């Protein structure tokens, strides 16, 4: 199953055939991954809070804290965890038109 289709946030909107990743390149250790949202001057602050609430299920206070971190510092680590879930979240955030990066965190 594709990394970005295994959580059914947008069930039915993904392609019917999604290729599997080649797992031979995965290193023996299992690093965690940071999902990072970058600042832009188009998205509304309230919109970004809403997206964090919708995508991660954060309460308003936590979502707002991440939004302010993005706004003031240019980036915020909004989620940390396994690679497949990180890729899924990055994909969903891109559907909401947020700028996203992933970085490994060994």
């Amino acid at each position, binding site marked *: 199953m594709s990394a970005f289709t295994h959580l059914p946030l947008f069930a039915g*909107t993904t392609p019917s055939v999604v*290729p599997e990743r080649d797992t031979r390149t*995965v290193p023996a250790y299992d690093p965690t991954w940071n999902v990072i949202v970058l600042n832009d*001057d188009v998205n509304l602050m*309230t919109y970004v809070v809403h997206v964090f*609430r919708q995508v991660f299920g954060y309460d308003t206070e936590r979502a707002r804290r991440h939004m302010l971190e993005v706004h003031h510092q240019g980036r915020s680590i909004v989620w940390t965890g396994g690679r497949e879930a990180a890729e899924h979240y990055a*994909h969903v955030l891109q559907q909401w*038109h947020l*700028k*996203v990066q992933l970085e490994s965190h060994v």
Partner: protein
Amino acid sequence: MSEDPAPYFSKDCILARLRFSPPLRELLASIIQRVHAAPFTLPTAPVTDASAEPDPDWQAAWGDSLRERTDLDTTALDALVGDVRFGAADLPLTPVAAEAIMRASVRVRLHLRDTVLRDLKTDQIEGHLDIYRLPAAEQQGYLCYRLLAWLEEDLLHQLDPGLLRS
């Protein structure tokens, strides 16, 4: 015994309730159509393994999925703006449609920001400018940009009333 009047809309119903003149709706519709017709670069998948060769199939699947979502969202915004009642009456939306419209609206604003409004500084795009000093194309783009931002904000406050208190 008094009874509460039955709500006209269900509590889950969101309203597109902005008011503006019909020519502005037509301008908005024409700009949105132009934006949708223009090439739109979807973001690529963030790289998770810099040591590995890029997987073109996986990248393509990532892009296809984003494009499919974006197309669905675009359809919802087109339907709203194409309705002659938009701007003159409250139009009910499901929460799912309202979120799709918001995403499509953001896409249009990002495109305007990258094209016709690319020369504006951040404080200008946020409203600190004299719109009448802008060239006609930028004026129209900016009007559309602000109108869509108001639409997003109004929908957001109905979808997520907790945002009002934050």
